[in-house]
């Protein structure tokens, strides 16, 4: 295991290293087509046993897909679902695409820059952050906070977008684990504000799991064995850095890879499963780095968070990255 890299944010916004990173608004775009796991499995050539495993063991039912439109369209739909962006375009300094697939458009096609014109954000600096796979949205929020901290305008904002197309087999399936979906999300990040402040962010990069799980049985086995403890370790480190514990934690927002892995993790740490937002796993599907925001949106709309509640976001990405972030609502 490598050393943790932790990025602390002082929630009080004081001190020489103080930096507030706050989620100002989160919106989600759920694509219109719900495809049963068996249909996806047939398309990918999975055996009946493999499909049964995904449904009964992993708790998957369907994935939401957007067969019409490209990546730019998908991200634009997410931004369009964010009414808090309207009228505040001039405050947006940065637009970041938190992307799991390192190359998601054929150069020089550049979706995040194509978006700027559609959204009235031509003045913003736009780029993609990647390589943390499905944990990249946590990275993007932290990166956005860093950039905003250096901006003299306290009202400055960053728009973080997440969501991807399932354009190739590697973007459709994690062997024996998950099937990808195409939900997308948009999140406005600010360097001030009381709601949804980041308290800690911890990431553990495990390059020993670099490789293609679909082709390397040994790598897949090693990754699956290491996964629970590695994820628990970063979650507990993030909790500790935020002064929290499993007992005081109000809610856990997981990545939507499957249900069984979270049942095992929760059992191992003694955290109640009913405090984990798992309802999007069977109904939406694992939408790359967008899961963070998809589940955050569910938590807010269902009233699962009270003011000052502290909650944990956790994700793992192939390659591999394990990451966790504690926020205060």
């Amino acid at each position: 295991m490598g050393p943790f890299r932790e990025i602390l944010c002082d929630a009080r916004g004081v001190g020489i290293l103080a930096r507030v990173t706050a989620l100002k608004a989160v919106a989600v775009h759920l694509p219109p087509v719900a495809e049963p796991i068996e249909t996806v499995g047939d398309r990918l050539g999975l055996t009946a046993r493999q499909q049964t495993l995904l449904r009964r063991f992993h708790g998957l039912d369907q994935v939401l897909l957007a067969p019409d439109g490209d990546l730019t369209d998908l991200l634009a739909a997410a931004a369009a679902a964010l009414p808090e962006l309207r009228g505040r375009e001039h405050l947006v300094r940065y637009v970041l695409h938190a992307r799991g697939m390192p190359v998601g458009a054929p150069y020089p096609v550049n979706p995040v820059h194509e978006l700027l014109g559609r959204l009235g954000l031509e003045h913003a600096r736009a780029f993609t952050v990647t390589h943390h796979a499905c944990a990249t949205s946590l990275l993007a929020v932290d990166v956005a906070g860093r950039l905003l901290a250096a901006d003299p305008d306290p009202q400055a904002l960053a728009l973080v977008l997440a969501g991807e197309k399932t354009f190739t087999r590697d973007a459709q399936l994690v062997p024996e684990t998950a099937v990808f979906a195409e939900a997308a999300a948009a999140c406005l990040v600010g360097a001030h504000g009381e709601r949804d402040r980041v308290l800690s962010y911890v990431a553990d990069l495990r390059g020993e799991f670099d490789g293609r799980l679909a082709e390397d049985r040994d790598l897949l086995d090693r990754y699956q064995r290491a996964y629970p403890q590695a994820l628990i370790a970063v979650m507990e480190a993030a909790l500790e850095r935020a002064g929290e514990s499993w007992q005081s934690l109000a809610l856990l927002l997981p990545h939507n890879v499957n249900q069984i892995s979270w049942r095992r993790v929760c059992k191992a740490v003694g955290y109640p499963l009913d405090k984990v937002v798992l309802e999007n796993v069977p109904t939406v599907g694992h939408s790359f780095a967008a899961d963070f925001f998809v589940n955050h949106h569910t938590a807010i709309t269902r009233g699962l968070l009270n003011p000052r509640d502290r909650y944990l976001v956790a994700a793992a990405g192939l390659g591999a990255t394990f990451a966790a972030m504690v926020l205060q609502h």
Partner: protein
Amino acid sequence: MRTVTAAAGPATAPAGPPPGAPRLTGAVSLSFAAGSVTARDPDLRVYARDLALPYGLPLAEDRLAAGTGQSYAEMGEAVIDALLPAGQPADLLVEVFASPDVQPGRAASVHLSSYCPGRPFAFALAEQGTAGAFSALALTASYLHGDGFERALVLVLEQAALPWQPPDGTPVPDRHTAVGLLWERSGGPALTLLGGGPRLSPDRARARVTAALAAETQGGSPLPLLLLGPGLADWEPPPGTEALRARAGSPYTGLWTLLAEHRHRIGGEGRPALLAEYDPLLGHLDLARLAPDRSSRT
């Protein structure tokens, strides 16, 4: 960072570097004549086909068959070997690319984290053209300002074998190049990002570089050494300016290769260097100053 996003032009008076400005303590540029064995992975063709065809871009069958592309992970390893030979630990590694890796699905920076002394926190920044490296430098300044981050490696990478045919006029590298820039809290020229502007015409970009040069000499300061990226290769700076020009065939690493090759002049001549880069696709201008560290020249 605030001047990076300024739309009002870069005509700021010269000033000392901001507190905690990153210091350039090492730089190397490596070119790679041969391709990587990974360029012959048959799955590259599948990935490229699935990615490019929906956008109407045909595959570059000749390049795919030749297998001459390069791997950013392997290029990054070579830079780490060259730049951190004594096993100096790094705390941060930021990989920057605009044109794609020959292993497009690989999280190369995470692999490089495990290869690099210190197992640095690592990620990649992409799809910002020539501006990507400047954004990486802005983030580097943020990390070096915080606890636990004392040495940062910024990798700027480009490889020449694009597996699809891009539209005419697309900047495509003509060779594989990897540049490593090592930044610390002390010990070398100090970086100040001066901004530039988005979506500028070439003429407006050149006017802003001229204004930045004029601002640098306010108060009798010496003319800086001017380093021009490939996007400004055909621009003639004002008379009396010593300008170094990046090679045109390295659209995303050219400026940084120039910096690596002339780094010791910046530390030794007692005058700053002004770096200017313009992206012809995105219209982005970026400017930066590297000022010699008078307390500890390298």
